[in-house]
């Protein structure tokens, strides 16, 4: 059995989430922005699995399956949108779509 505490896994998940959030806010490449979203998903998934182990309940792992499903759906739709946006302005810069800010 593991001698690690629950907190170790929570810390790793939190660090991954925060790194993904910083990347999402700072990077300007649309593809890298969506990669950072996937990083945030990773952090959440580690948290969920750790709590699943802690409570000896499979709900956490089932939830990670659904997180993976949503991540896959999000990735396919987002990459389709990225290709579409790239073909419109011929750049991947998120700032090129500044007028969408309203």
């Amino acid at each position: 059995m593991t001698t690690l505490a629950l907190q170790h896994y929570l810390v790793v998940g939190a660090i991954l989430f925060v790194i993904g959030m910083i990347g999402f806010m700072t990077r300007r490449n649309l593809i890298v922005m969506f990669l950072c979203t996937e990083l945030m998903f990773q952090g959440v998934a580690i948290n969920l699995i750790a709590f699943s182990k802690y409570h000896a309940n499979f709900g956490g792992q089932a939830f990670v399956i659904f997180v993976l499903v949503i991540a896959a759906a999000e990735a396919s739709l987002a990459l389709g949108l990225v290709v579409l946006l790239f073909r419109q302005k011929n750049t991947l810069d998120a700032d090129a779509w500044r007028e969408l800010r309203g």
Partner: protein
Amino acid sequence: MLAAFSSAFGLLLPLAYSAQVLEPAAILALCVSAGIGTVFLLPSHFHPSWRKVGGAILLLSGLTFLFLVLRYTAEVKQTNLHTIYFWIFSAIAIFSAARVITHRQPVYSALYFVLTVFASAGLFILLGADFMAGALVIIYAGAILITYVFVIMLAVEARSPDHQSAAQMMADYDDYSRDPFIASAIGYALMGVLMFVIFDRSPTTLLPAHNPSPAAVRAQSGAPDVSGNTQELGIYLFSSQQVSLELAGLILTIAMVGAIVIARRRVLRLRPVAPVVVEMVVFPATPVDDNPHSIPVYGTDNPTQKAYPET
């Protein structure tokens, strides 16, 4: 080798000063220094040597944080290979996650993200979630990341060489990040709050005694004995999560249809059409003669050339 490292690790642990809780001031100072390091490390207008300084600051604060967490862990007093694997996997995951957001080239970001996925799959195995680790590697590293790399290559390949401004923008938007200072401040503020909450109590070991494992529960109730986490997960999924599972399949189908609809056909309509240059043929393309069976030539200005065959 690993066993020797493990024993050395166990000897080192009691040397560290044992404390119940991480001090909030230490967490705050670490977050501030890591934030400064991140600002310098992100792609920006600074001289490249500043990136090295930022990387050094970030590494130093990471090592300090590692030491603090080790001190926090010291009361567990027990070290085995499991623990060593945890430190290795989490170090790889965090390092490659930092490279994902600080590397200038998107392809390398994607590859470092693959490394993060593998490391967190290792963490999942340590947590006893074998099926989820496999699914993570297959779905993320096998499917989603391949799609990302495809799109990166497609987006670079579709750029025609005569778009100089687009090329400059391409170099520009990967080299300069947007508001690194504000984003780091917000991100590390969130990280500090999370650390306060997580380290607010003494370490709670995984698998507490008051929570019996599902296998033990089922053995008591006389249900058929299954072995392995994967089988238990399958039984759980198909007994109490049936509707959610069907909905997940439906969501995937809808996303597939939506992606096809989004990325289809409009590609050709939106690309700028190059003007068609029509060249007049000054010299006759075919020999001029009076043979009515020669090849008819349409649309020439040459009066000696017959526009139509006389037959």
